[in-house]
């Protein structure tokens, strides 16, 4: 088990003038290299909890340690220089160029200019930004570009921990998906310890290695992997919060590549006989058959069209309009099945045909697939 990177013990925040604490004695342990998402309804204290870690909000009581050190040991501003911080409105400094924005923490830490400049270039490359942007001002950039600069700025001093407060909240769904992909990719390369606050359960499930579901007052209802949450919600609150269609959501967590095997499916090579095609179709219990040209799937036709044909390849076939890849989620596979007239999902690798998925394959997967590390 990896070392605990962030530990909250009895963390409490009581704002002056309010009766109930925003966060009430929260215990949470986040391992090194984990991406943990904090989710919950409005007022559950997820943002407050996040902000206590870097003392933007000072804890009223309890202990918070990062990397083994109590955050109260040093002056707040020093603690924050070792923690990356990204907020929803980003907050780039309008009067600094992009390069200077990214260089903020290195400058505060007193790095030499050369080292800082090199690091800025490195990050611009990492975030896929145009190097020509360095001398521009934030006001000249689009929202998506500013987002990426914000993350670059947070990563500049290479902090082990990254705190993100609803960073994609103000962005439209299309861009959000791409930003999420990018974050996952970054995390694969960088292995930071990330705490990510969101109110969107789907986002939380998509990104989080583990998800902490908080209730009003910072009460921790469940802290588990996405699969565990879906399989065994701790109580009614968690159930409601996860929303309906939990089965489908679980399907979204697995990929075709995770399946142990892929059936060949109801297909025959082009130079098989028409009778062969009919036989194969019967074997699969369907009323259609596909035709292969080597590895390339030419198309499919109804069984009746094969009867009496000398060569399977002589029959006029329809192309498979719907195909998925090994990276597709099982949920996308189900969607493909529903959309296709054939009721199966054909799996391709580029042009190469790999196999077929039927509904039965998926249900088998769900019922047996709970014992995973």
């Amino acid at each position, binding site marked *: 088990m990896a070392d605990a990177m962030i530990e909250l013990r009895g963390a409490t925040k009581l704002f002056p003038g309010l009766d109930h604490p925003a966060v009430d004695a929260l215990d949470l342990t986040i391992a090194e290299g984990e991406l943990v998402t904090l989710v919950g309804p409005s007022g559950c204290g997820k943002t407050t909890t996040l902000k206590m870690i870097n003392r933007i909000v000072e804890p009223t009581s309890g202990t918070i340690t990062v990397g083994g050190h109590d955050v109260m040991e040093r002056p707040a501003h020093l603690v924050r220089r070792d923690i990356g911080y990204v907020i929803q409105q*980003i907050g*780039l400094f*309008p*009067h*600094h160029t992009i390069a200077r924005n990214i260089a903020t923490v290195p400058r*505060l830490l007193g790095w030499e200019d050369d080292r800082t400049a090199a690091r800025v270039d490195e990050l611009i490359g990492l975030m896929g930004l145009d190097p020509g942007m360095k001398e521009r*001002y934030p006001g000249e950039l689009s929202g998506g570009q500013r987002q990426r600069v914000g993350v670059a700025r*947070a990563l500049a001093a290479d902090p082990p921990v990254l705190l993100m407060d609803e960073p994609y909240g103000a962005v439209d769904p299309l861009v959000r998906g791409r930003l999420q992909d990018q974050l996952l990719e970054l995390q694969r390369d960088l292995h930071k310890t990330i705490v990510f606050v969101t109110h969107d359960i789907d986002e939380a499930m998509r990104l989080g290695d583990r998800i902490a579901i908080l209730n009003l007052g910072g009460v921790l209802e469940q802290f588990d992997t996405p699969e565990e949450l879906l399989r065994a919600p701790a109580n009614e609150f968690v159930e409601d919060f996860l929303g309906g269609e939990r089965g489908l959501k679980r399907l979204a967590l697995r990929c075709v590549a995770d399946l142990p095997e892929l059936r060949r499916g109801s297909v025959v090579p082009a130079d098989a006989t028409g009778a062969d095609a009919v036989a194969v179709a019967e074997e699969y219990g369907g009323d259609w058959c596909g035709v292969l040209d080597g590895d390339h799937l030419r198309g499919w036709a109804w069984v009746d069209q094969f009867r009496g044909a000398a060569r399977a390849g002589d029959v006029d076939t329809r192309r498979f309009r719907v195909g998925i890849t090994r990276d597709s989620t099982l949920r996308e596979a189900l969607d493909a099945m529903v959309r296709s007239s054939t009721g199966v999902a054909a799996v391709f690798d580029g042009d190469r045909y790999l196999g077929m998925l039927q509904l039965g394959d998926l249900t088998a997967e769900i019922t047996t697939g709970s014992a995973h590390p």
Partner: protein
Amino acid sequence: MIAIGSGLVLAQGAPAGQWLIQNTDAIVRRGLEHLQLTAISIALGLVVSIVLSVIALRYRRTYKPITTAAGIVFTIPSIALFPVLRPYFGLTATTAIIGLTLYTLLFLIRNILVGIEGVPAEIVEAAEGQGYARNRLFLEVQLPLALPVILAGVRIATVTTIGLVTITGLIGYGGFGFFIFDGLRSNLYLPKLLVGALAPMVMALVADGLIQLLERALTPWSRRAAA
């Protein structure tokens, strides 16, 4: 008004021109006096205002008293303020400068406060989150971003002060205003009156323009259009 003034100047023609040439020394001297009084008062006013603003921002309880006090000073008619100060400080430049400085305080304090408070909260939070300590945050983030508003205040204060310097003629100074008082005493001698009235106006407009240029030079980021 300017038209009437210049028209009359032209009408006066020769006598006016003659007076101007004969008294160039005095005019320049008074002009410099005007400039000095303005510059010193603004500089002093800025220092005092920054100090008072920082106090008001750090110690919330002083906020209201400080802004109210500055406001009250402002509403004292200038022809009353300088005579009132005179018995305490005499017919010296000190009296003039104290009075003039007091009048700048309202604009400067107000605009410094509005400017600093106008910096968006998320930028301040982002800065804190990156690890800025309080003092450096003020100098590197809040102050530069508040600059446009602060400079607007400096502009107004400067223009107002240039106008008020004329009133210090009551206590023997006045800069260009000296000529107004002189002209009033010498049976409304027009050239004196006009120089005394028009010169400060020209000076004020020039100063206004210069400070606007300064503001543009100091804030390159606000002019680049968004993508």
